[in-house]
């Protein structure tokens, strides 16, 4: 029997028995329809409002077209050829020791200086190390609970804090926002939830790494962070270690809500598999990240270091609604080989005296393309608003491209908007000059790239910054002959 038919029979068979309420089943068949969404909803044991919301999102998604305005190229995605739900891998399927892990990954771990124990966890090795991390995570969780901070998976939050979720989920990124956000809303099955109560300053950096069962990257992640009045939280997403995933398409949504006088700092280091040297097999990363400064004097700061993925489509944005609120975006995006990145931010100034700052550093090597795309929009009511944007590009070699697409819309006459841009190139002459002073090519590139990125690296939490700095050099390995 040809494969297609076999597949069809299995899917239809499943359907016949109604996989709406299967108990043993570990994954839903390929493809997307309302039954699959019901299946996910049941699997996750969510309250009824979620089913309704997911179905609305799905119906809306069906009416939409995949966007193609970004400067990226890829073969069309067949959305019916994707698994939308699979249970986490069982312990016995995981590698038993580091010997079973791809040596290429181990080599990178070593270069990044990741301790052996952490390597095992990151590579998903089924050993006691995982138990260690569970106990660390538990101590961590107890401390947060004392302060009233909720930090759990989005699924737990939906079950245990439905009121908060219902109030805020989709309030910053509605499912109608864009194609990938609609898809995510319909099918997401993993992600994080944070709530920091009034006046509480979260004493530690929150990281998915410490969340139990978070070692595997979800394909459709959903993150929701709420900082109540006068609170502060710093959240770290991702890690510097390379992440491989069988799923090529990733479409996450992150929503941040800062109430009056609250501050959220969100840092990302993304190092997903970028594909091989010819650009085959890398991850497509289509992310919607947006925060709203809902209350007066609130602040949201995005910092990102993007080195992985074959395609990055990502614009962490701030809606500055509260008067005197502040939005920041600090970004380093590196592309090598055939990687493509179209990334930037949107700063939407609605409140009075709102301020925003954009610092974007794009580094392109080999045959890659790196684009900055940003919108600064100042509404009529945003009297006294200010924006400062700086977009710098660094080219390594002569086959790569750096592009800048700044959009500025100002609708009142007493706001100040500044935009600066530079482009530099690491030429063969510069490399020879460095060599002549005793510095190797790779060290020279590391030196220049780190100098170029310093302003953004400084925004990262200390420990993250050191790792990120090493990551920049590793990512550009082999970018010069």
């Amino acid at each position, binding site marked *: 029997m040809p494969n297609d038919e076999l597949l069809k029979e299995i899917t239809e068979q499943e359907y016949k028995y109604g996989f709406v309420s299967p108990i043993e089943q570990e994954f839903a068949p390929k493809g997307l329809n309302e039954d699959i969404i019901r299946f996910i909803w049941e699997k996750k044991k969510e309250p009824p409002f979620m089913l309704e919301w997911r179905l609305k999102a799905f119906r809306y998604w069906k009416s939409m077209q995949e966007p193609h305005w970004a400067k990226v190229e890829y073969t069309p995605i067949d959305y019916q050829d994707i698994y939308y739900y699979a249970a986490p891998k069982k312990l016995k399927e995981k590698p038993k020791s580091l010997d079973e892990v791809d040596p290429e990954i181990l080599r990178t771990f070593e270069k990044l200086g990741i301790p052996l124990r952490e390597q095992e966890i990151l590579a998903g090795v089924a050993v006691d190390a995982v138990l260690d991390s569970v106990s660390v995570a538990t101590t961590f969780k107890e401390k947060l609970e004392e302060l009233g901070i909720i930090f759990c998976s989005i699924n737990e939050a939906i079950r245990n804090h439905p009121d908060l979720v219902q109030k805020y989920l989709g309030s910053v990124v509605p499912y109608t926002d864009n194609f990938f956000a609609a898809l995510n809303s319909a099918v997401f099955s993993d992600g994080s939830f944070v709530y920091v109560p009034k006046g509480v300053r979260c004493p530690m950096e929150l990281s998915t790494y410490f969340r139990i069962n978070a070692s595997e990257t979800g394909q459709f992640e959903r993150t929701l962070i709420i900082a109540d009045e006068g609170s502060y939280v710093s959240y770290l997403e991702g890690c510097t270690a390379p992440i491989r995933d069988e799923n090529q398409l990733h479409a996450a949504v992150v929503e941040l809500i800062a109430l009056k006088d609250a501050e959220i700092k969100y840092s990302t280091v993304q190092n997903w598999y970028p594909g091989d040297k010819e650009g085959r097999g890398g991850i497509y990363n289509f992310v919607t990240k947006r925060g709203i400064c809902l209350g007066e004097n609130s602040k949201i700061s995005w910092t990102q270091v993007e080195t992985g993925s074959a395609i990055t489509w990502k614009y962490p944005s701030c809606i500055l609604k509260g008067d005197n609120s502040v939005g920041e975006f600090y970004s380093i995006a590196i592309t090598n080989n055939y990687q493509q990145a179209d990334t930037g931010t949107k700063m939407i100034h609605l409140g009075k005296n709102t301020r925003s700052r954009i610092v974007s550093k794009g580094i392109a090597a080999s045959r890659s393309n790196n684009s900055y795309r940003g919108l600064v929009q100042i509404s009529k009511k945003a009297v006294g608003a200010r924006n400062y944007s700086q977009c710098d590009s660094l080219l390594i070699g002569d086959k790569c491209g750096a592009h800048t697409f700044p959009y500025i819309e100002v609708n009142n006459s007493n706001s100040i908007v500044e935009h600066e841009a530079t482009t530099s190139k690491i*030429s063969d002459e510069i490399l020879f000059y460095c060599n002549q002073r*005793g510095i190797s090519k790779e*060290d020279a590139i590391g030196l*220049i790239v780190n100098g170029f990125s310093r302003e953004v690296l400084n925004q990262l939490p200390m420990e993250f910054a050191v790792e990120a700095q090493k990551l920049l050099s590793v990512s550009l390995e082999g970018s010069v002959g």
Partner: protein
Amino acid sequence: MELLKINNLKVGIEDKLIIKGLNLTINLGEVHAIMGPNGTGKSTLANVLAGKPGYDVLEGEIIFMGKNLLEMEPEERAREGIFLAFQYPVEIPGVTNANFMKTAVNEIRKYRQLEPLDAFDFLQLMKERAALVGLDASYLQRNVNEGFSGGEKKRNEIFHLAMLEPKLAILDETDSGLDIDALKIVANGVNSLRSPERSFLVITHYQRLLNYLTPDFVHVMYDGRIVLSGTKELALELESKGYDWLRNGNNGSK
């Protein structure tokens, strides 16, 4: 002691023969000057010694401290003790002069199996050596050569020389584009770095630098070869007679 020995060197760029059989020996502690009209291969010689890509060495050998120089990568040559003061120093975006020198010095120390210098000692050393060429300490915190004037770039090259303490320092037209005051500063800097443990190869088009840097030997290069060698008097003779003197068939050797 013999520091550098070049035997019958032939170098081409893209099928064109530039250096056509050059011989030169430099002993430790000596200062050699190479003069000659434009386009005779002086800068090519400097670049080939430093290992710049793009040149084809067709024949001959270069022995530096008993080792085959042509087999080494440019950074290895630098670590072995070859320094080139560039005719056109490049600007390096995002890297401060201080950080650049720190990386370079420590790479070279590592190669020689020495401990890296600690931050305090290093800063002291930098200030001291920058003062040799009259570079203000603020230039250490600026990106390498970025926004430097022509004269400042040349002074910065000599500052690098002072920091890296090479065995052989090659100055490629370091005097070009300098006014007389800058020339004196650069020459004084170089003079203060002369030592029995260091040799210099000074490439220049004009004799005027040699007024300040008294060479032990002067060589005249013409059409890819050294055609005349002598002492500093040769430079003066060349200055008065001009390079046409060579073209008129005086190919006498040493």
